[in-house]
């Protein structure tokens, strides 16, 4: 059989598009999945995840239209849509593309990064509280950016320093808790300690400088998207897209890791390697997300929980979590713009409020059950 395959692919490439497996029709596909056959390769796709992602994507697009319409100078979503279709007045174009869209893009990229990284870490540590903002990764990134802005790159925004600080936090965390897959709760508690430490050091640095000098860093460190241009969000988005293939590659093993370290290992997963790789990826993604708008809480925890609920826990909902992260942060940011108008209030404060409520609900509901 395999001999025949190699022959046909050598002779003509067109032959590979015709399915060589005659018995494919008798193949039973797993419930709730689509099977895609492409030449010799075949893939399984979770139907529910595809549908949820499609719905979330359309909601996000509508959300973006609404977000660019809302503000001190009102636009209708329709005129915003016209601007996107290249059919609007110069005023509207400036309003949409120069003033509002940069902030919206920054919010969407940051939110997606936070949602995705939250989903990765929660699944890995097997604990819903284990998100990059809880375990000190975001605060580590913040510390590094604060340090670089104040002492090294004065003037330019050192977004690329974020992964350095995040890695530093992760290394400290790993030295204190070596087995995140089996000691989830300990990992979270130690992480909260590391997080506080990082924040305190960053605030100490800021307090030694004059207020005029640090005001922009300080605003940013509260989670803020005011005056965001494309200078940070576009390179960050590019890097995130580069990381995506790696995340896709590890997503199969991540799904198996849900069965626990021991079982995953006996199913042929190289657990140590996979855990470390996924954690590194998650830290990179979280750090990049933080670099744009500062350490934003709530998104990384809420988005994966809601996404899991939407796909009924059938798979690890990485992409739905990313889309939901973008959607939630866009909602928080737009809400804060509307409520605080004409003042500028940090978006991080709004997510902190929403996150605080959600964390309490989550902890109180979970008080009785162990899982």
């Amino acid at each position, binding site marked *: 059989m395999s001999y025949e395959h190699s022959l046909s692919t050598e002779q003509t490439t067109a032959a590979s598009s015709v399915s060589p*497996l005659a018995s494919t029709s008798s193949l039973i596909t797993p419930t709730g999945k689509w*099977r895609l056959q492409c030449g010799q390769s075949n*893939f399984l796709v979770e139907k529910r995840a595809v549908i949820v992602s499609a719905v979330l994507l359309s909601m996000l697009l509508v959300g973006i239209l609404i977000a660019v319409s809302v503000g001190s100078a009102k636009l209708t979503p329709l005129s915003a849509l016209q601007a996107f279709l290249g059919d609007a007045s110069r005023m509207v174009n400036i309003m949409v593309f120069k003033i509002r869209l940069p902030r919206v893009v920054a919010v969407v990229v940051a939110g997606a990064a936070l949602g995705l990284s939250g989903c990765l870490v929660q699944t890995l540590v097997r604990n819903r509280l284990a998100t990059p903002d809880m375990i000190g990764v975001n605060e580590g990134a913040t510390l590094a950016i604060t340090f670089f802005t104040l002492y090294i790159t004065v003037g330019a925004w050192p977004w690329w320093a974020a992964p350095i600080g995040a890695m530093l936090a992760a290394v400290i965390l790993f030295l204190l808790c070596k087995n995140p897959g089996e000691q989830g709760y300990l990992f979270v508690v130690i992480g909260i300690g590391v997080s506080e430490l990082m924040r305190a050091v960053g605030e100490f640095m800021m307090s030694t400088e004059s207020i005029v000098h640090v005001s922009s860093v300080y605003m940013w460190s509260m989670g803020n998207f005011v005056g965001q241009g494309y200078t940070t969000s576009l390179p960050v988005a590019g890097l995130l897209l580069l990381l995506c293939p790696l995340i896709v590659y590890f997503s199969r093993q991540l799904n198996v890791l849900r069965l*626990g370290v*021991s079982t995953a290992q006996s199913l042929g997963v190289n657990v140590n390697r996979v855990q470390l790789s996924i954690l590194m990826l998650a830290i990179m993604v979280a750090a990049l997300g933080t670099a744009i708008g500062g350490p934003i809480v709530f998104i990384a925890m809420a988005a994966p929980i809601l996404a899991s609920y939407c796909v009924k826990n*059938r798979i690890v909902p990485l992409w739905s979590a990313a889309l939901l992260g973008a959607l939630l942060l866009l909602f928080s940011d737009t809400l804060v713009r509307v409520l605080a108008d004409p003042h500028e209030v940090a978006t991080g404060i709004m997510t902190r409020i929403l996150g605080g409520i959600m964390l309490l609900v989550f902890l109180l509901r979970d008080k009785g059950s162990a899982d």
Partner: protein
Amino acid sequence: MTLLTMNNIDFSYNEQSVFHNVSIQLSRGKLVGIVGPNGGGKSTLLKLIAKQMEPNSGAITLKGTPLSRYSMKALAKQVAYLPQHPLSPAGITVEQLVQYGRHPHQGWFNQWNEKDAEQVNQAIELMQLADILQQPVTSLSGGQRQRAWLAMILAQDTDLILLDEPTSALDIGHQIEVMESISHMVASGKTVVLVIHDLAAAARYCDELIAIGNNTVVASGSVNEVVTKTLIDDLYDTNVDILYAPFDQAPVIVPRRQVHAKK
């Protein structure tokens, strides 16, 4: 025919010796029970074979090749291991769980083929899961849940299956349900090694027993060779009577009471 040999295995954990000079041989198509007191290293023995732990010295050979030469994925096609307390993630259905067993045979560009469908269906049939296929694993009874896990192990399509106390948390009804399922696996050609505390069930179902105590293999062989009064008394530090079941003469171990109540 020999499937696996362990030769002079030494293993210590946290600088405490767990095994000293352990050697065993597993032949194909047998149901082998590992018995012995708590903390004697029975689970460790399975983990060493499953390569979840590495011995300090000695050699483990599977089908003539040293275990260290197998990658995790290659080993997962030969050996399946079910831990004592496997984790069932919320929301996962029986069907999905069984499909996970195919993971070592799949790759990014080969996620589901005829062989996968066939093996999963066979496993579902043999473990009699057709009626509860779409139920969440977390909602099942102890016996059903264990059968679902066994089906996952079966779908993995390995020659050797290692089960760590698959019946320990179950009442006798569910225990028999699981032991019967395991017998089906052996009848279909698998070699099964299981850690088991219930000596009566071990004596009834196993072809061979390996008794582990004092950091080493105390005895191994057929049920009647291993289950003797001297050996059991020595192994568990007890004083037992061995009776024989009327139905099949399987030995039944009944410990004598040591302290007598006042009359």
